[in-house]
């Protein structure tokens, strides 16, 4: 039993890493990984929203009618996002400013809706909380690592501390848009290399499996082919 709970928690780190394996929530990942501190801030916001919405959805899973579940989930999620937004405005106005538009956009972040669909509406409240915590923290860790890499290469600093800025001229392209796509692509490739052979079933997850809209996407893809 104990190991079951741990695996629910640890699942998010390697096997179902939301950023590098499930490829969820790409937009804020690319946009906010310019500074390590933003990575942590955004990651923790997502973790809180994810835990809150997972607990709530799991607790209400018998009450929410199946047909209108997506709108119900969106209302629950946006409530938590608004709470976080108000808290940030009150206590961390600096962070709120640098995360900006991407705070309200957590609502449409597919990690959260994806976990609600894939996990919270089938599992117990406690498991859903663990899943939210694990997914959220792995999102935070991955986002922070990616942001640290970009910050180091692009500005020569990590968490605002100067590391290589005096030794090598920073390649500022890395904190601009193209560097974001490039770093992300390379990290995914690295992850593929490291987990190759270990997780064969992961291949199927390559195409945004965890996203709530994945099925629609592939339908649209096929629909356009005829």
């Amino acid at each position, binding site marked *: 039993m104990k190991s079951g709970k741990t695996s629910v928690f640890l699942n998010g780190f390697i096997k179902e890493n939301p950023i590098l394996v499930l490829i969820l929530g790409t937009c804020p990942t690319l946009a906010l990984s310019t500074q390590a501190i933003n990575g942590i801030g955004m990651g923790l916001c997502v973790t809180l929203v994810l835990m809150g919405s997972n607990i709530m959805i799991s607790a209400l899973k018998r009450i929410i009618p199946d047909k209108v579940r997506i709108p119900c989930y969106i209302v629950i999620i946006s409530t938590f996002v608004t709470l976080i937004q108000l808290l940030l405005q009150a206590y961390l106005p600096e962070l709120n400013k640098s995360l900006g538009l991407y705070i309200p956009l957590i609502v449409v972040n597919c990690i959260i809706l994806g976990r609600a669909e894939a996990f919270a509406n089938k599992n117990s409240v406690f498991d859903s909380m663990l899943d939210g915590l694990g997914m959220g923290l792995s999102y935070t860790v991955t986002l922070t690592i990616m942001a640290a890499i970009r910050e180091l290469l692009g500005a020569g600093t990590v968490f605002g501390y100067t590391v290589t800025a005096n030794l090598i001229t920073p390649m500022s392209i890395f904190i601009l848009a193209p560097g974001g796509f490039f770093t992300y692509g390379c990290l995914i490739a690295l992850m593929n290399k490291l987990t190759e052979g270990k997780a064969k079933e992961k291949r199927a997850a390559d195409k945004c499996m965890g996203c709530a809209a994945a099925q629609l996407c592939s339908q649209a893809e096929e629909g356009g*082919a005829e």
Partner: protein
Amino acid sequence: MKDMLMIIMAAVLANNYVLVRFLGICPFLGVSKKLDSAMGMSLAVVFVMVLATAATWPIQHLILDPLGIGYMQTTLFILVIAALVQMIEVFMKKSMPALHKSLGIYLPLITTNCAVLGVCVLNIDEGYSFVNSLLNSFGSGVGFLLAMFLFAGVRSKIETNEYPKPFQGVASTLVAASILSLSFMGFSGMIDNIFGGM
């Protein structure tokens, strides 16, 4: 007039939603394999973006602001957008079956597209007037279309090439997107020079 032109140009090129602002990446990666589906999706996005702005701008300025409940913005906007998309779908099915056939499958996808919510929130944050908001949304939609169009072409080339195994799939797509994004960076100075110097 100059303002309006600048808003559109900036939204299409310099602040391209996909390649510079990173909004709507999921459909950009997910539905860009074939040109027809990429175009269908983008046209639906342009359509919904403009309509969503037409719906959310009055809500913000006539309901939320006078009542002092600006904090309901996120919740209300996403619900309005979701309802709007549903309504468009029903309406299209009834009165424009031909259009529904070509765009219908993309509509439900758009509800969870962050570019649509993003453009609505940005219009409010930037303090644009109603007309300018509509122009900005239109420009952003066209920018999305342009990025999708270019990238669908790039991807059809990528798919037929061979590259190291770890890079297969999303990784190579992202690296290609990075190069496309690089070319769009060139526009950022252009807009300032054309309109700033006038």
